[in-house]
């Protein structure tokens, strides 16, 4: 008897059919991977299993009994524990990381009624030890970078006494090392009989873990692949076409550097480094969590500061005091945590796709100061076409989009206008391989500017970049071009 059997689940949002009679079983001790393009319905399925959404039709059997949690607490109590895709659903700004780790235990009363800071610290550290992660338990959760938030979510789920663990893109912002650590832990849990439903766009993850891969398309399971999985076939099933080999076309980046850092130091104590980007060049920086990639990009964008060193843009001194100045100078950045860095809350003005895209361009598009929505809608239509965003239209709320499609909107914002330097922090978070390919093509087709991409996934770095650099302890260690880049990637893996 399967541990979980979902029978003909359907769920629509307005006219969007997110799930169409989806049927899927999971055996005890099995790791099932769910693959699917952005908007295929993966997160919707997860939300139904975890009690966040109710299905319109269909049923679920868990351990042979009907299972229909109406609130998340019921799912957890039944033994289904979920790590959601969005990292701001993990902890509480204002409370500590330790509190975030123990949140479930406060809820189900496994912690004593009276809690002390000492106990929270001790218990949280024990949890982290078990999961094999290292996090500052006394830090305010609000100050935690996105990747660390994901670690909190995973650690918390791991120690829950789950029979079915659901992970919705747990590695989206983890680097190779953390991912490997996670694989080991998951395989260990599997050996102990836990079933795992695993969702990821990273084939490396799936190759390492999956016993079975279910491919979702248009809200239904179109095919399942058993081990050993033929990923090329799976991807082709998923996106409906073969994936062209995504190798950077060797291009000559010529001319003077668009952007330079000389003698830069990110922190007062760290080693200095130099960096130069040429027009038309796409450069990727990889490195472990907390290596300083985001900090470097923030400094270039004027949201943070270099501790030391000079920057030059097109040969002129460049020292932005704020993102505003950076944008005025032709520098743009898409931040790593889209919810915090790019999107307006649901139900608030500015939540539509068109408004999200137009926000930084308002003064250019509307020099008179009065807004005529037609223009931004046209631009949004263009972005939807170019990046293949699955949406009802330019006036749809970004909150009705799947995670990957939200990410595409954020990229579309900065694609909408030319610039001199584009900074992308973890741009492919949650973007499926097919779409990633489209985006990379779009990025690489622009020769008018330089692009600097921070990503913790070396595979992505190689796919997108002409040159891959690594960052470690807040300094750029090494940079090689072309084929050399591949080797760095493989070293890291």
């Amino acid at each position: 008897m399967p541990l979980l059997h979902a029978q003909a689940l359907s769920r629509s949002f307005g006219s969007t059919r997110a799930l169409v009679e989806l049927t899927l079983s999971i055996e005890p001790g099995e790791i099932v991977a769910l693959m699917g393009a952005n908007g295929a319905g993966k997160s919707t399925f997860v939300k139904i299993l975890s009690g966040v959404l109710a299905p319109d039709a269909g049923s679920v059997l868990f351990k042979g009994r009907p299972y229909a949690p109406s609130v998340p607490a019921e799912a957890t109590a039944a033994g289904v524990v979920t790590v959601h895709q969005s990292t701001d659903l993990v902890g509480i700004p204002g409370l500590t990381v330790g509190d975030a780790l123990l949140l479930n235990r406060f809820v189900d009363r496994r912690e004593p009624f009276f809690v002390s800071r000492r106990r929270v610290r001790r218990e949280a550290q024990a949890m982290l030890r078990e999961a094999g992660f290292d996090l500052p338990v006394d830090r305010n959760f609000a100050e935690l970078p996105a990747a660390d938030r994901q670690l909190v979510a995973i650690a918390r789920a791991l120690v829950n006494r789950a029979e079915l663990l659901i992970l919705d893109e747990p590695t989206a912002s983890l680097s190779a090392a953390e991912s490997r650590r996670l694989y080991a832990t998951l395989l260990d849990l599997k050996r102990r009989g836990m079933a795992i439903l695993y969702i990821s766009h990273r084939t490396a993850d799936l190759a390492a873990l999956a016993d079975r891969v279910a491919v979702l398309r248009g809200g239904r399971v179109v095919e399942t692949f058993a081990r050993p999985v033929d990923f090329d076939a799976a991807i082709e099933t998923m996106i409906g076409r073969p994936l062209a080999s995504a190798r950077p076309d060797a291009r000559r980046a010529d001319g003077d550097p668009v952007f330079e850092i000389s003698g830069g130091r990110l922190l007062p104590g760290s080693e200095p480094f130099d960096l130069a980007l040429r027009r038309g060049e796409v450069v990727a920086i990889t490195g472990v969590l907390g290596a300083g990639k985001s900090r470097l990009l923030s400094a270039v964008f004027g949201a943070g500061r270099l501790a030391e060193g000079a920057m030059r843009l097109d040969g002129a001194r460049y020292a932005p005091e704020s993102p505003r100045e950076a944008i005025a100078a032709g520098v743009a950045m898409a931040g790593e945590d889209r919810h915090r860095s790019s999107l307006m809350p649901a139900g608030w003005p500015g939540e539509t796709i068109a408004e999200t895209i137009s926000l930084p361009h308002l003064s250019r598009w509307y020099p008179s100061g009065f807004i005529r929505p037609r223009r931004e809608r046209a631009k949004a239509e263009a972005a939807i076409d170019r990046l293949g965003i699955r949406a009802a239209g330019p006036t749809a709320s970004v909150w009705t989009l799947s995670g990957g499609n939200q990410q595409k909107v954020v990229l579309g914002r900065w694609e909408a206008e030319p610039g001199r330097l584009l900074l992308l922090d973890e741009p492919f978070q949650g973007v499926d391989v097919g779409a990633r390919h489209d985006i990379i093509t779009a990025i690489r087709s622009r020769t008018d500017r330089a692009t600097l991409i921070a990503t913790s996934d070396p595979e992505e770095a190689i796919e997108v970049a002409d040159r891959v650099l690594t960052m470690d302890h807040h300094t750029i260690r090494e940079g090689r071009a072309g084929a050399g880049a591949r080797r760095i990637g493989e070293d890291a893996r």
Partner: protein
Amino acid sequence: MTTAHDDTASRPGAGEHLREFLRAGAVFILLFAMVVGFTAAQPAFININNLMSILQAVSVVAILGAGVTVTLAVGGFDLSIGAVAASSVMAASYVMIVWGLGAFATIPLVLLLGAAIGFVNAFLIVRLKVPDLLATLSMMFLLTGLQLIPTAGRSISPGLILPDGTTATGAYDPLFLLVGRSSLFGIVPLPVVIMGVVAVLLFVLTERTRIGRLLFATGGNELATRLAGGPTDRLKTLAYVISGTLASLGGIVVAARVGRGDVSSGASLLMDSVAAALIGFAVLGLRRPNVFGTIVGAVFVGVLLNGLTMLNAPYYAQDFVKGAVLVGALALTYGVARGRA
């Protein structure tokens, strides 16, 4: 501020459409019902002069409410507006009666005072990072006391004896009084015209311009706005300066109507304009601050109070009914929309 997964199981059907209509129109339906009811009970209610009286009575609250709306849009809250309006009444009276200045000097001076107070609020909030409520609450206390210091707590009317024993010689400029007491074409009171102008200007500013978009963006996600190049500090400052200036404009209208400077904390002005702004959330079912809604909210309360007074309801019944109708409107707007609660 909700995020991603806040979905309800809603599929549009006939019931859904009715619900949506009720939700968007709740306030208007109630307003219409009130007008019909009051007119039936007391035909003098629908008389044009009475309708103008209603608009005039709500004009100050509506002007202040528009300011509240702008601060709500940037995610802030201005608790000081009542005190700013009260201080402006005192300031206008002081300038005319003690300094002996005329309307053309008084009005800009008082507006400047309001703008300056808004600027100080913004300084506390933007520069010193004091939370909005805290900063504006302190400002409220400060002004409540400050407005009384020049006259040692006395009301300001012609012949005022100053703390140093001298007698003030000025008087209210008749021109100034026109701001509160004259009517356009003998029908539309000037305060109503001012309210209309403020409403249109602020509506256009918040809903139809780049700046409005950025104001709301600042309130929605300040970090994201800053990262998109929005000058969030300047936008917040703008919002508080607008709110302070509108509050002092409200104070000028009050002063021009009452013709003297009386001690008041402005607490009821504050509560009423906050109420108008919050009822505004329900108007059109928008569930967010919006200037149009605020004006409708103010008128809504004005119609209710005027009608009840005409029907001779005791004053305490008015508060009760105000609360009850508010709850009713809210339950309709918010409660009806979601099928399952």
